[in-house]
């Protein structure tokens, strides 16, 4: 009973220790990304929702034409998300009723510590030196864990394709960047709502703009730290980012940091479980062996005692029998003597 209790406590303690959220490695290092990494700044104060960025993206990436034409502004009356044939979309919001609508452009944020790259079990996503998060469809298995992992719900999937479905998302026009060109959407924007440059330059520009227009902008650059920081950063007019559909509950912890604890437990289990389980097996065997030996010893002792008892009883009985026999003989002799004596006396009288 005690053995099992001990083992259960041991087991639970071992698992608890190994599987606790860990600080293994993740928090010890600070990473700033590659120094020349680029990004894009989107300013919702300047954006007019013309969808020219969507049209340019569609053209540059040779995506299929959507059901409603790309200059149809009525689609803005519904809230959309990225799709297999739309790497980027613009949504319309009314943060202050009665006032002009505000627009948000949605596309892959090319995170500093991309959740998709962390999640992909075949290493199909890579954060390149340019800053773009690049997808390799030649190894993708189609497990769609990247879609589960992305906090911004960006990757889309070609569910309509039977044998060659791909994950679809903004590429930051990596091929164009390598040719020295601007991303398609940035080039097409008529209002300079999209600005391309080095990420750290863009951060400075964003904060300068906030300072130069007091009371106009929300005093926050979205993407500066969210999920560990993104290459695509945003400015929004007051009242808030939340009013434009931005998720303000994401926190600053990146995806790799979120899973590093669980991953750290893996080698611990591999290293320690053999020790624990082998040890328990050895202890179990030893206890069984000792129990066997004790049992054998007890049986032997019982047998020995039984035969000793039996022998003692036998000799006792024998002794008793001998005594009884002797007495019987004595009694018989005495009787015979008395009888003889009586006869002798009786003979004398006659």
């Amino acid at each position, binding site marked *: *009973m005690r053995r099992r*209790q001990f083992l259960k406590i041991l087991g639970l303690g071992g698992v608890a220790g190994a599987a606790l959220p860990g600080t293994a490695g993740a928090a010890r290092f600070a990473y700033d990304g590659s120094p020349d990494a680029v990004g894009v700044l989107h300013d919702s104060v300047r954006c007019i929702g013309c969808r020219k960025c969507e049209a340019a993206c569609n053209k540059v990436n040779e995506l299929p034409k959507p059901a409603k034409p790309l200059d149809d502004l009525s689609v803005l009356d519904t809230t959309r998300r990225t799709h297999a044939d739309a790497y980027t979309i613009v949504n319309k919001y009314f943060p202050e009723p009665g006032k002009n609508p505000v627009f948000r452009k949605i596309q892959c944020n090319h995170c500093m510590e991309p959740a998709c790259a962390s999640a992909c079990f075949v290493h199909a996503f890579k954060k390149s030196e340019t800053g773009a998060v690049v997808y390799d469809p030649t190894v993708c298995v189609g497990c769609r864990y990247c879609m589960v992992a992305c906090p911004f719900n960006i990757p889309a999937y070609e569910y309509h394709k039977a044998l060659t479905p791909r994950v679809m998302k903004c590429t930051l026009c990596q091929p164009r960047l390598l040719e020295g060109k601007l991303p398609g959407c940035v080039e097409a924007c008529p209002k300079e709502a999209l600005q391309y440059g080095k990420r750290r330059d863009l951060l400075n520009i964003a904060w300068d703009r906030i300072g130069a227009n007091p009371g106009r902008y929300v005093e926050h650059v979205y993407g500066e730290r969210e999920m560990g920081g993104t290459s695509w950063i945003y400015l929004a007019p007051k009242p808030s980012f939340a009013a434009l559909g931005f998720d303000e509950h994401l926190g600053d912890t990146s995806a790799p940091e979120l899973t590093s604890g669980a991953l750290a437990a893996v080698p611990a289990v591999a290293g320690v479980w053999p020790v624990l389980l082998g040890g328990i097996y050895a202890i179990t065997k030893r206890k069984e062996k000792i129990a066997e030996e*004790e*049992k054998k010893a*007890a049986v032997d002792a019982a047998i020995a005692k039984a035969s000793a008892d039996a022998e003692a009883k036998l000799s006792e009985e024998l002794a008793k029998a001998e005594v009884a026999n002797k007495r019987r003989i004595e009694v018989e002799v005495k009787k015979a003597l008395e009888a003889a004596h009586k006869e002798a006396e009786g003979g004398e009288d006659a």
Partner: protein
Amino acid sequence: MFNTLQDLLLHNKSVTYVIMAVVLLCFVGFWHFLTDKEERKRRY
């Protein structure tokens, strides 16, 4: 209201310690509940 992570964690972990103690006592009680009716095995 917690203004710092430190405040939040202090509160959370304090509550947790108390519950841990209660849990351990409950485990002892549960063990007795499970094994009350067992006949004591004779070990030779």
